[in-house]
């Protein structure tokens, strides 16, 4: 394995509404920022994560390439998933040995349509999508399966929003109050905010990483696992795939100071803490997490960036980032970062 590190991270100041910027306009500042941070103008590989259904246009990621300087031709790829999986692809590509840098980015504007029903389109077209099963409904089914203590859930939401308010990139959400239901047992305050945003990360190998950043965040473990798509085939109260990914990435091989979890609903944090075997001394989502800003298709990559930032600024020596995709935490990617 080649040593690969995160040497730069940038994200937009996420918004809860459409500011009117086109996708490539949303991306351009964060790409420029990581280029400036690293001094790199060209990268050995470029990979992005996004979802065409958010924009309602096929191949929408292609027009986003306008933000990159894609001429002369670059080596480029795209995943129709969160940018965290683009980072995984870039990490694999760097393992080939012939290049030593990669640019990764993820972006999404969930303000354009009704995210709740757009996410129905990712369900299987035979058994689930025809029922019109929507995102809040399947999340509520999982919340019911977990059956968590209401006070514990409230505390997760309260803590996430408070942390988000002190994070200049996250949304400024008030103290949660009110007990209106979204879909029972989910409360309206349990639902992640509609968010537009983007993020970019630069990966570099070995010596180059050392030259680009005084404190590179080395990827010491990275793995992803998946479970059956159909909800009735899974034990919803647990995440076997997150646990498998965490084991494969070696989360428990050392103390975890900070864990950034792609938990869009408070019960997901409970499931993930258990799956990743995080102890009580691990600080969870100091950025506020997706409950404070949920730029769909970038939120997982932001988790990796936020976990790396703690190492870059010297406040932590070992952190974990988690990203999820699919209904009810179907797919999970776990990254272990070390100073």
């Amino acid at each position, binding site marked *: 394995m080649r040593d690969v590190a995160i040497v730069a991270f940038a994200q937009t100041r996420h918004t809860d509404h459409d500011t009117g910027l086109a996708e490539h306009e949303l991306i351009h500042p964060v790409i420029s920022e990581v280029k400036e941070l690293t001094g790199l103008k060209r990268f050995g590989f470029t990979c992005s994560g996004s979802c065409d259904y958010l924009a309602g*246009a096929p191949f929408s990621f292609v027009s986003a390439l306008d933000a990159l300087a894609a001429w002369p031709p670059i080596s480029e790829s795209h995943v129709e998933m969160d940018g965290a999986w683009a980072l995984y692809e870039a990490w694999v590509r760097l393992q080939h040995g012939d290049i030593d840098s990669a640019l990764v980015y993820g972006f999404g504007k969930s303000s354009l349509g009704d995210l709740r029903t757009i996410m129905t389109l990712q369900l299987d077209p*035979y058994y689930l999508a025809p*029922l019109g099963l*929507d995102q809040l409904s399947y999340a*509520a089914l999982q919340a*019911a399966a977990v059956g968590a203590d209401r006070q514990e859930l409230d505390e997760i939401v309260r803590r996430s929003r408070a942390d988000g308010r002190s994070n200049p990139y996250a949304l400024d959400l008030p103290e949660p109050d009110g007990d209106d239901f979204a879909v029972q047992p989910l409360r309206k305050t349990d639902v992640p905010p509609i968010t537009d945003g983007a993020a970019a990360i630069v990966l570099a190998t070995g010596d180059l990483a050392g030259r680009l950043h005084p404190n590179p965040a080395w990827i010491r473990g990275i793995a992803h696992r998946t*479970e*059956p798509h159909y*909800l009735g085939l899974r034990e919803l109260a647990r995440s076997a795939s997150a646990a498998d990914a965490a084991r494969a990435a070696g989360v428990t091989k050392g103390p975890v100071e900070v864990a950034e979890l792609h938990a869009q609903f408070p019960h997901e944090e409970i499931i993930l803490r258990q799956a990743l075997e995080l102890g009580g001394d691990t600080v969870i989502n100091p950025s506020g997490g997706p409950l404070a800003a949920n730029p769909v298709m970038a939120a997982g990559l932001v988790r990796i960036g936020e976990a790396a930032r703690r190492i870059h600024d010297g406040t932590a020596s070992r952190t974990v980032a988690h990203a999820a995709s699919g209904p009810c935490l179907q797919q999970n990617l776990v990254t272990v970062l070390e100073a």
Partner: protein
Amino acid sequence: MPSDPLVAQHVLEFPGGYTRTTGPVIGRFLSELRARRIVGVRTAEGRVLVPPLEYDPATGEPVTGEYVEVGPAGTITTSAWVDEPLDSHPLDRPFAWALIRLDGADTDLLHAVEADNPKALAAGTRVWPVWRDRPTGHITDISCFAPEVTKIVSSVRAEYRLQVGGALRVFLEGVERGVLLGSRCEQCEKVYVPLRLACPECGNTLPDTLELPDTGTITTFAINNLPDPRAPEVPFVSAYILLDGADIPMIALIGDVPAHEVRQGMRVRAVWVPESERTASMANIRWFAPTGEPDVELA
């Protein structure tokens, strides 16, 4: 620069729908639905997957060709309650999503459940499918599931022909004339109303028929909150009324007064229907209404 934001509506749609092939496994499930059967497929390890998949999610091995009819009833394992259905949802009124372990299956089917309230859908609740009128081979051939039948409402109705003779006939003929008839037992020194032929205490024949006034005193009463076809409205008050000169109270409705103002000792008088509408029936008295006299101290 325009001062207002430039906004456009944009719709993504496949007119007429998007055609998909089902393959043999999912196709079998959907075809069975058309015949109102729910089937699972058996894995090499013997588990029954419902709805069927081409592979065993645990091992990735192809499933066997054996299809097993399951359900149609099942048990809820998890549910979520939707107060405000979306247009895309199967029901247009509050309902639940549920994972349902159909009888004979080893995995859960996800579907909508119709119920009055979320409390009716705890884990363990038994549910049955409600089929669409004309199944076409689609997951929505099952309109929804509904809780198992645990109670029914059966109607009871029998008709009788009653004939009035004896003392009651005499009493009702009095009522038709606007008079309440009672009878007095000389031995027990008690006046009974309605009129009767024999004294319930001593058994003596009661010869004395006497006319009683239509005024009296409420001895006790009840406020009724269930509708009754004979009562004017809900709530209504039924009361024991001791007619002046009688020793036994008579039951009747109280009217022309709010229910919460009725009290023991209250003086009342019968409200008769107009003479032209009178019949030999207690319906002649609409109800008893307060006279406004001071209350009586009851012994």
